[in-house]
């Protein structure tokens, strides 16, 4: 064996597949759904785990894979919300709805769920009961069956009460083609309900700022809404506006489809108490997380029909058309009340409540 070959072999063993910055650590902002999260996916997960053109590399809300002649949608999601109980809901309902909605965003009919619970030593059993009861109710409401699970207990301090991880599978009906890359100039942008309610409800409970009474999380299954819109017209793209909020989702979709998007600030629904809370905390509701709101990009001719269909469902009663897809580089513009247009950029990390 020549020396050169030996060196190469050593290189092969020692070389990390991605040059990660030495000494860098994970920051909370890496979980915000903004640019830092995207960086983690781009620099760590995709290069190590995903082959080019693979299903993982598509980075959809859920994977769509073929098995036994059927198209299956498959997804997983971890829930670490603090506090676990917040106005209008708790982590259990959120964990079921989150996974159900990720499947629905592929146009799939959600069928089966798994759940893994990580419990912190000292968690009151009563709280666990409330969370599990909420999971059962949410499954019933979404028409899915929780068919397998796992439980782990960690030492006090190693988790914050409890964490819930759910996975789910659903069937994608024949002919359904929904994907983040399908937006075309001329399409209309539909938002299924008022934005920012979930994030503001959680944040206000965390902050103890005392207007929780007027606020509630929007967590809910979007299955009926999606089914109704798809029956009414050509829905090209669906994405639930979770972490990073509406603004981040529109940016992701503009990027995936290679188009510009233009939204009207005044057309985007925000409930009055949520708006008031955002004003107080200095938050932009367009960047606040939702758990029961999705963006649908719909062919222009079908937009009104899809809107009417959405509004006829409980989850979509406040749906609105908020803008359109236009030709141009992948970016998002927001028309303000004064008639100026400003770019709606992707945030780096979480929004930080202001000082005064």
């Amino acid at each position: 064996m020549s020396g050169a070959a030996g060196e190469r072999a050593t290189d092969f063993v020692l070389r990390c597949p991605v040059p990660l910055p030495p000494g860098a650590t994970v920051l909370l902002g890496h979980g915000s759904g903004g640019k830092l999260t995207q960086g983690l996916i781009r620099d760590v997960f995709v290069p190590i785990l995903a082959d080019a053109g693979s299903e993982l590399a598509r980075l959809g809300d859920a994977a769509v894979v073929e098995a036994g002649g059927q198209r299956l949608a498959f997804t997983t999601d971890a829930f670490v919300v603090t506090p676990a109980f917040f106005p209008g809901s708790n982590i259990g309902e959120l964990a079921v709805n989150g996974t159900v909605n990720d499947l629905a965003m592929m146009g799939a009919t959600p069928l089966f769920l798994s759940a893994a619970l990580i419990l912190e030593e000292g968690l009151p059993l009563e709280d666990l009961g409330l969370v599990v009861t909420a999971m059962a109710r949410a499954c019933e409401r979404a028409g899915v069956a929780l068919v397998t699970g796992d439980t782990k207990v960690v030492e006090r301090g190693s988790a914050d009460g409890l964490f819930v991880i759910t996975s789910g599978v659903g069937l994608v009906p024949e002919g359904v083609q929904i994907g983040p890359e399908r937006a075309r100039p001329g399409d209309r942008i539909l938002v299924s309900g008022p934005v920012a309610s979930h994030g503001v409800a959680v944040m206000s409970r965390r902050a103890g700022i005392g207007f929780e009474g007027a606020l509630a999380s929007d967590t809910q299954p979007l299955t009926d809404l999606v089914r109704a819109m798809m029956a009414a017209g050509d829905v090209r793209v669906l994405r639930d506006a979770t972490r990073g909020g509406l603004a981040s989702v529109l940016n992701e979709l503009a990027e995936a489809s290679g188009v510009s998007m233009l939204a009207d600030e005044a057309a985007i629904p925000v409930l009055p108490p949520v708006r008031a809370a955002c004003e107080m905390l200095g938050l932009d509701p367009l960047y606040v997380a939702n758990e029961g709101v999705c963006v649908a990009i719909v062919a222009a001719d079908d937009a009104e029909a899809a809107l009417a269909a959405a509004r006829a469902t409980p989850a979509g009663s406040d749906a609105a058309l908020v803008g359109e897809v236009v030709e141009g580089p992948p970016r998002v513009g927001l028309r303000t009340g004064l008639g100026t247009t400003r770019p709606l950029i992707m945030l780096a990390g979480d929004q930080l409540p202001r000082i005064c």
Partner: protein
Amino acid sequence: MRFVDEYRDDRIARALLEDIGRIVTRPWTLMEVCGGQTHTLIRQGIDELLPAQVELVHGPGCPVCVTPLALIDEAIQVAKCPDAILCSFGDMLRVPGSSEDLFMARAAGGDVRVVYSPLDALEVARRNPDKTVVFFAVGFETTAPANAMAVKQARQLGIDNFALLVAHVLVPPAIMAILVSPGNRVQGFLAPGHVCAIEGWRDYEPIARDFGVPIVVTGFEPVDLLEGIRMAVAQLEEGRADVENQYVRAVVRDGNAAARAVVAEVFEPCDRAWRGIGVIPNSGLRLREAYRAHDAELRFPHEGTPASESEVCIAGEVLRGRRKPHECPAFSTLCTPESPLGAPMVSSEGACAAYFLAGRRREEVSA
């Protein structure tokens, strides 16, 4: 929403814009003092709708931006101390210190908690009697009353493990520092409405008189700002230099008497260094002798000397209104909200962040 929608009404805004266009006859330079005002102006693109003769330069009214490096380092040092809990408003956490920020201190094991009120920090102190709980008291006159109240309550309730790291700054001395600085271009000020809601505007009257500059106490919504601009331009055109109040729904001449009383009881004025600007006499607050036991700077003597600021960052020029954020060679290239070189790129009130978030990009200066 009442008290919001009517101040964002585009018809009223357009009428005010037309008014300003009608009365202006020559170029004027105004400074909006508060970073909250800067953000509204830039987000809504108001600076682009104004007549070309009216130029707005952005003031130092971003408490996060002007908090000196040494105090950020001190906060990081406290956060890393195993017997301490550092409580702060959220937007201080990403401000770069000499070598790291508070988020990094937290990732490295420091106990850093985001709170929404100093009274929340007091509660943390009550629940953790074996730790020293330090609240990073940043802000202008607006946040001083709540911080004073927290210290007063700590004293009343015997919560001795509660301390303030005081970085309070005051607006009127800063306005004077801008007016006397060489090369000053500012001819009129939009004074910060929230600061004046606490302190009133009596302290601004001698400034308007002595320096011959109009000062208009102004709110934060688009209509507020346009009305404030119109009032300031009208004064300049008429050759007047008065203090006027646009923000009548929140501000009276004497401010809030109860808030001023608690501030005066707990704090006293002191000289203070402003990041990027330097020491301004009597421009800060510190705890009075009677409350000095709650001073974090005395409990945690500062170690080490701060590294120098980034050489390329022009935060000091931006904070004094001499240059705009997008004139900085680092703006939106080397310096972004993900990796800020200077504090104005971090804070929700920082002028650089306002420009960046509104999609403004570096101004190419032709040679």
